Each structure stands twice: as C-alpha cells, then as structure tokens.
C-alpha cells in the first residue's frame, strides 16, 4: 500500500520547522503561565502542532495509491455546489445568533446545522474527496463531533477558557477546511 517514493526535501524541511515552532511555542506557553495572551499562545501551539502532524503524516506515509473507485466520486463542480448553501447557513446562523439568540429558528434549525453538520462537512469535503456526496453528508455529523471535541479538549488542556467566540473560531476553522478544499478543487478543475 505504501509507495516507495521518497518524501521531498521541502516536506522534510517544513516538517522540521513546524516541529520546532510547536516545541518553542509549547515552551513559551509552559513558562508563561496564565495571562491575557493564553489564547494566542494556545493557538500558536495548536497551529504548530497541527502543521507538524500534517507534514509528518505526509512524510511518513506519502501515499500515492488512489482509493479504488467503486461508486461515482463527487466531481469538483458538484462538491463546490455544496459550498454555497454551507456559506449561506453559516452567515444565517451567525446573524440569527447575534440578533435572536434562543429563537426557535436558531435552536431547531441553524444551530444544529452550524455545530453538528458544517464543521464535519468541511472535514469530509477536505478528507473524503473520492467518496460520494451522500457519504460525505452521512459522515458530517460524526466528524463534526470528533473534530470539535479534539479541538475543544486541547483548548481546555491548555487552560483556554471556553466561550462562544472560541467555539465559533473552532467551528469556522473546520468548516473553512471544506471551503478551501472545495474552492481549490474547483480552481484546479477549471
């Protein structure tokens, strides 16, 4: 399964930089204690760690073999078609949360979509590229729950106080992955 191709020098170099960035940020955070910049430090640590992990995976596995296509994969145009409604729901959710918190529309419609579907859809669009749109949708809720929990638990471990803003940033980041991936696929297809 694993290809014999060697990782590029750039991947190795970037991986090293990301590792040292995360280690450095971790040291700064450990010696800094709690304070007004805890959030910033936590974000730096998380970003560094995430970049390192992604690059490490890339370097170690460097898989070239595509998945066998048993079902019709989602074309970039179909996947991009999901991005419009996703953006619309996101904007509507933020507006409704600001203007009418606790409203039935938010409670029973937009909030569950924004929390339980959109972040996972972002992840599934980015990571399950060769799967069908229906499967990406079916996987959205589990990936939302898993993705949000991993990020929120890390923030809690780092001492960052949970708040609506923190959660919004987490959710938007995960959702944004899907936007970026979908947008990139569409651009490449064009």
């Amino acid at each position: 399964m694993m290809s014999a191709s060697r990782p590029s020098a750039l991947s190795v170099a970037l991986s090293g930089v990301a590792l040292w960035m995360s280690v450095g940020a971790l040291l700064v955070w450990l010696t800094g204690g709690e304070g007004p910049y805890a959030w910033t430090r936590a974000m730096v640590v998380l970003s560094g760690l995430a970049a390192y992990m992604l690059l490490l995976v890339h370097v170690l596995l460097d898989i070239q073999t595509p998945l066998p296509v048993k079902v019709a994969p989602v074309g970039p145009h179909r996947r991009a078609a999901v991005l419009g409604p996703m953006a619309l729901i996101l904007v509507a959710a933020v507006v409704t949360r600001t203007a009418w918190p606790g409203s039935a529309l938010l409670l029973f419609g937009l909030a569950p979509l924004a929390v339980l579907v959109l972040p996972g859809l972002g992840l599934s669009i980015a990571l399950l590229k060769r799967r069908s749109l229906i499967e990406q949708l079916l996987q959205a809720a589990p990936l939302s729950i898993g993705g949000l929990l991993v990020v929120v638990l890390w923030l809690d471990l780092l001492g960052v106080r949970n708040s609506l803003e923190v959660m919004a940033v987490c959710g938007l980041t995960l959702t944004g992955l899907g936007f970026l991936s979908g947008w990139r696929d569409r651009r490449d297809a064009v």
Partner: protein
Amino acid sequence: MVASPLFRVNGEPSSALGLSRGQVVLLALAMTVATLLRAYPYFGLAYPAGGDYGHHLHFADGYRTTGHVPLVNEYFQRGLTHWVVLPGAGMIYALLASFAGTSAFDVAPFTALTGGLECAGVFLLARRLFGRSDAAVLAALISALFPAGPDMIAWAGYANLLVIALLPFTLLSWLRYWDQPSPSNLAITVVLVCGTAAIHHFSTLWLGLILSTFTLVMGAAAPRASAGKIAVAVGVGIAMGLPVLSAALALAAGANAAGVVLGANPRFEITRIDWAHWDRIASTISLALLGGLFPILRRRFGAVADRRMLLAHLGICALFGWGWLVGINFSYYRAVYFLGLPTALAGAAMVASSPRNARTLLGGLLVVALGLGTAFRLPGAIRYYSILTPDVVEGLAWLERSSGPRDVVAVGSFLGFHAPRLLRRATIVAMPPHQVGNTEELPLAADAMTVLSGAEGFDDALDRQSVRWIVITANSGDTPQPKISLDALATKTRVSEVFRNDGLVVFHVGARQ
C-alpha cells in the same frame, strides 16, 4: 454471491452510493424511524424521561457558563467527591446550547438524532462488509428497530447512546485506514477515535479494547506490513488525543478501573445478564438474527479484516457480558446494548444468505417483528423512567423553600440525578454499588441506601451524613423501589411525613431518641 436486490425496484437509476431509488427511500425511512423512536420521550411529557440526563446536561451547563470542565458536582453526594466523568458528551451539548443561545436542557431532544446517525453508520459499515447496498439497507433497518437505543434513551444514557451511534463510523474508518493508510484516512480515523473516546468512560473501554484486539490480531498475522501503520496511527493518535488520554487516565484512576475490571469485586454480581435483560434490551428475536453470523464467519461475506473486526466486537461483548464464566467479575448487562451493530449485520447476512425468492418476505417479517416488539416495549419504559413531573418539581420547590441552605437531603438513585440541580441542597444519593462510577462515592451511596431502605444502621447513617430530609418519588421507578422505602419509613418514629403530592413524598428527620 448473488447480487439480486432484496427489495425489488423497477429499473431506477443508481444514486452515488450505488443505491436504487427504493433503497434510498428505505434508508431514509430507517434513519427517520430510528430518530422518531428515540424522540418518543420528548413528546407529550413535561420533562424528558430518564434520570441520567440530569447529570449530563448539568455538567454541560456548568461547562457552558464557567468555560471550564466542572470538577465537582456541588450538591451531589454532598459535594464531597470529584465529578469523575469524561467531558465529551457534556461539551457537545454545551457547544450546541451556546450556539443556540439556550440552556443545555433545551437541546436535550437532539439526542434523538443518534438514531439516524447510528443507522447511517451501520449502513456504511454493512455496505463495506457485504459489498452490496440491499443488504446494507436491511442492516440499517434492523439497527433502527433494535430495542437497545429506545430503551437507553428512556433512562437517558445520552453519552452511551452517542458513542454507540459513532461506533460504526469509528470501526469503518479504522478498517479503511488499515486497507489504505493514506493521510486522509489517518486523519479521519484519529479524529473519530479521539472524539468518540472522549464521550463516555464505559464505551471508551469498549472501543479501546475492540480496536486493540483487532490491531493485535492483524498485526500478529502480518507483523512487517502492519508495524508502520500501527506506529503512525498510535503516534498521531496519542499526539492529537493527548487531552482525551489524560482525561481517561484520570477517570480510570478515580474509578479504580483496573481493580473493578480485574479484581475479585462482588459489586457486579447482580448485573450479570439474565433473560429479562436480554429480552428488554435486545428482544427475543435477536437470538434468531444472530444466527446470521455463521454465513459471515464462513467467509461468505466481507474481507478478512472486516470479519476480524466483527469478531473483536463480539469477543469484547462476550467478555464483559459473560466474563464471570471465566473469572472476570466485571460482567455487566450493559454489554447487550452494544450488540445492536453485530445483530444488524448478522440479520442482514441471514436474509442475504437465504433463498432468493424468500428474501423480501424474510427481511420484511424480521423487520416487522423486531419493530413491533420495540414499539410495544417503549411506552412502558418511558412510564417507568418518567422521574421528573410537574408534581415532583413542585415538591422539590416546596422543600427548597422549607429547608435551610446547609440541610442534607437523602434521595433515591434516579431522582438523585436531578435533585441536586433543582433543589440546590446537599444530597446523598442512594445508588447500588454497581451504579457508582467513582469509588469515592461508595460510602455516601451506601449510607443513602441504608436510609432509604430503612435497613439496619438507619440511625447511624442519618447521623453520619447529617440528613435532615428524605425524599421519595411516588409514581415512578427508583432505587430503592419507592414502595419499599415508603413502607420502611412508615415504621420509623424518627421521621415524619411533612409533604405529599402525586409525585413526591417528603419526610423530615427528627432528633435521635
């Protein structure tokens, strides 16, 4: 393998999942039915049925309002013990409530969505196992109607339900990673495993053991080919799931997990699976459905890895369900709740292995029999576990007005999940030892059991815990049984009944004579 459809449809075009239009409708129906069955406790009741959500959602509200994971449940067991629980379920409810701008209790009905989620996961896993969508749809239908989910939502095991719904996705992602160790498969696996492992302690033990058993077996079969995959998955998993690991280890230490599982502990003797448990949670018909395991194990379906994953799942269920036969004392009927996935797969295999012209009839009969059994059982379970009613809440409000802020109140097991939050008084909660997750709580729970059952040592227990009030539910189930408590307290001269309505009876505790 014959690839004829179980449910015949007339030449509709295939959708992207290889489903015919009829199968799409059936899958959507399965997901809807599963969700509606689990939504039953939220219709027509002033408060959802069940006790446990009192804790789950109180935890979520604590996290939502303070921004940190609560470490102590202020009024539960007099606030003297740590709140030993994995935070994932509470965090999800808190996230949802925060975004909706409401309390965590307002988002409780979304737990019903675990039904649809579980069906979707079972469908995807079954499609991989059988390589055909008709059998996968049937597995989803069986999973939708399996009584364990509706039974669990009746007593409000929200965290456990969430994990059972996520379990098929997690196993599927691990299998896919094993086949194709690509970065995207690894990322999905790590996200799902870490997220799922953060939700519910017992289920995390389950998940960990299934994945470990599978990995060890596969690794032993092909060590050189597996070493890289295992090393990368474990490394990335630990790095990304460090907070989950630290929370799980803290919980394992607090609950003395190793001692509970491996020690000679009599706490769990009464929780061994008996026929009543099996019939209530899995239904009699599941015994027939499990016969479908034979065609799977005889290699008629699935790849080697798929069958080994299924065997690992069944092995862990057997270990914790009937481990007492081989000297493991942690034997718990909770194991039956985890049998929904293997039963659904086995049932679908049984139908898919039967003669071609009998498949639709057999599948239909199984689904109808299973569904009717679940539908008939559910209202009784909801009635039994309807702990909170307007009368009970009124009674607790009366007690809050009538008691002092430092008074200690003794309550039963089910009401004990709600009373600390609604009453805002220190409580001791009567729990049988097998229900106590945190060993710090054992002496307090034992004293409360003594008080509520009027057993020997009644006066000593009252004095040891400074109990001033005893509360008994009048019209729902509880532990100890309310009738036993009421009969026992009627013989005690030290206590006097001071409040009674249709939901609650309150006794005041006088001085020792």
